[in-house]
């Protein structure tokens, strides 16, 4: 649900989001080896499509974020990948406002980066599949939780009641967390078996 439309957030929050996202994109592009660009493109396309798959969750319906998975595979390059995916969602489908792009990118990519960092810290090449699954589940679920909290926080800083917003956002995201943890665990377990170099620390 990191699709905050225009007109909801206050100007200081929008500015802060833009600054963080520009810095993140610059950081991500600087360390990007041209050889890895196709990987970024694939993950960006995955992020773009992930939001179109819907799950009914109580009164509302929610979609996958997959930012944990992207953070693990891409590292800092998740920022440009996320920005491109969100720009196209905003332009083609009207999901999220164009002015709020900075905040939306920040809310999605910062948790992705942290989840990816945590994964890399605990992951060793040749770790067992169970360990890969567990770490993947933690990163996938954790990234969603952190995104929900950041969305609630950006709403609170824009003058909305934090507790109410956080409860709404976190409650609707609980099923997403579970699904996403399962999905990321399966994806990481598969990657660790067939393509462990995808998970290796980017040089």
């Amino acid at each position, binding site marked *: 649900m990191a699709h905050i439309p225009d007109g909801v957030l206050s100007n200081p929050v929008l500015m802060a989001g833009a600054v963080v996202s520009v810095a993140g994109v610059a950081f991500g592009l600087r360390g990007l080896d041209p050889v890895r660009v196709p990987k970024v493109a694939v993950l960006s396309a995955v992020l773009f499509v992930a939001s179109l*798959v*819907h799950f009914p969750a109580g009164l509302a*319906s929610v979609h996958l974020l997959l930012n944990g998975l992207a953070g693990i595979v891409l590292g800092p390059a998740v920022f440009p990948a996320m920005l491109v995916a969100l720009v196209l969602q905003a332009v083609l489908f009207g999901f999220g406002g164009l002015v709020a792009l900075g905040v939306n990118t920040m809310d999605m990519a910062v948790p992705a980066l942290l989840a990816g960092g945590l994964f890399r810290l605990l992951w060793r090449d040749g770790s067992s599949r169970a360990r890969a699954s567990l770490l993947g589940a933690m990163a996938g679920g954790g990234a969603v939780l952190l995104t929900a909290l950041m969305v*609630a926080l950006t709403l609170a800083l824009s003058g909305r009641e934090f507790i109410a*917003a956080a409860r709404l956002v976190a409650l609707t995201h609980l099923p997403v967390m579970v699904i996403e943890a399962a999905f990321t665990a399966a994806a990481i377990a598969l990657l660790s078996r067939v393509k462990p170099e995808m998970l290796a620390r980017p040089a």
Partner: protein
Amino acid sequence: MKILLPLALLLLATPAQAHKLKLFATVEGPVILGTAYFSGGDKAVGVGGVVRMADGSMAGEVRTDQDGAFRFEVRSRTDHSVTMDGGDGHMATVTIGAAELPQTLPAGPAALPTPPPLPAVAGLDAVEAAVARQIRPLRQQLDAYEDKVRLHDIMGGVGTIFGIFGIAAWVSARRRSPS
């Protein structure tokens, strides 16, 4: 085997649009009737909103019922904008132009230049209300149709992503190649 569970979950989920609050409103006589729903068609129940007039002053508040529907009685003939706020970062606005409201209402504050009143015809309001009621489902359908995510949009988006990163790779490869 581990991949089967998430795959099954993915298959169970109906592919629809991402989560976005949508608002649809029409006029029947002096009443604004509307529904709020999340893209994909789920009703937005118990969502509060405010109605503002053209000059920005509050006209009143609305709240959606069990069916995601709301109604608001208009007191003056001016542009009304309804803004619904889900509280979790979802917000949508719809504007009802003064021209859609019945001419029998008094002109409101800062009303836009309204067309000269038509000669009073008996039952004109009733006809207008009937027509509005008749075309309401059509307008709703049109609204939903416009909002539908289509495969060619998705394919276009994916293609654009690969194009952007392809150009990036090309530029950086050119920069490196002379060495």
